[in-house]
């Protein structure tokens, strides 16, 4: 997965986006963490990048990628820059009834992006 740090050349990459709960006034009800990594994916997905990552794991994918590299795409390719790895975020917060809730929320943070 590429990071959007100016060297990705406009290719599909992960843009880091951190939101500090203090800045949006949510620190009165969210105890931990102090902020949220609302990372997202952006950038272009040329045809030859479709199927990455994991393209080498499949013989069929490798063949299809060779076709794409040569501009002989089998069928129309609508490749899109999407999260390919997500992680869990644990949150500690007050609910409406002033209970403290600790919750493990899966798939909250985008860790890697890729073309699919």
């Amino acid at each position, binding site marked *: 997965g590429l990071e959007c740090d100016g060297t990705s050349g406009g290719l599909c990459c992960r843009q880091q986006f951190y939101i500090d709960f203090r800045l*949006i006034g949510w620190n009165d009800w969210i105890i931990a963490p102090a902020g949220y990594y609302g990372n997202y994916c952006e*950038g272009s997905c040329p045809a030859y990048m479709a199927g990455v990552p994991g393209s080498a794991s499949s013989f069929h994918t490798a063949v299809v990628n060779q076709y794409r590299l040569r501009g002989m795409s089998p069928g129309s390719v609508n490749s*899109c820059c999407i999260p390919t790895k997500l992680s869990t975020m644990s949150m500690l917060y007050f609910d409406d009834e002033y209970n403290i809730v600790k*919750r493990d929320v899966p*798939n909250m943070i985008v860790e890697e992006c890729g073309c699919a």
Partner: protein
Amino acid sequence: SPQESCASCGLRTPDERVNIDFLEAVKRHILNRLQMRERPNITHPIPKAAMVTALRRLHAGKVREDGRVEIPSFDGQAAFNNEVLAETSEIISFAESDEHTSSKSGLYFLISNEGNQNLYVSQANLWLYFRVLPAGPEKGIRRKVTVKIHYQEAGAVSGAEGGPGGGGGGGTGRWALVEKRVDLKRSGWHTFPLSEAVRAVFGKGSRRQDLEVHCEACESAGVAPVLVDPGDPSHRPFLVVRARQVDGKHRIRKR
């Protein structure tokens, strides 16, 4: 544009409007994932002393002296290598008391399953602080007392008159009992299993957990359980509920 079918393409426009919308989308995303419609309206925060005590008991060593919570895995990035966990919740509810609680021994908790219709309570424990009174028997002596906690069973009518020992609470409903022998040498916290009680509350769609706490021989032993005392927020009773989400639609069954 080659990216006509790709929603994530072409976002790189330094437009303030996009940022505002994006921030709103992220806020909405967080609320959705926590199954909330709106952010909670916090008008009278829990006293910090009560909160810190509860967290300190549960996560020993992870609360700093200044009261801030230190939980390493709470940094989203640090959770990078974690396997995707089953969606779990841990709810800490602080005791309340009002004129409807029958006596000095009555307290209640407000916990709801709202928005989490398929929450399964895997464990629930009541934490009670027992104070050894200065006027009691000699210091250092072990004091054995029996603590009885009454709660309404599933299907019981809530809000009715009369309760355990005629003390009020839920008259027509049956009251169940959790009994524990507590050995006290000094003041301290003790836990009482209340999984069945909380399951009963969730099961009947209620949000109020009424409890009656009675301590046999406490008085003669010079011991007193600390119930809701505004002057002593550090020792306010609390209930810890561990629950996990169960998907009602896709249950695995063995045949």
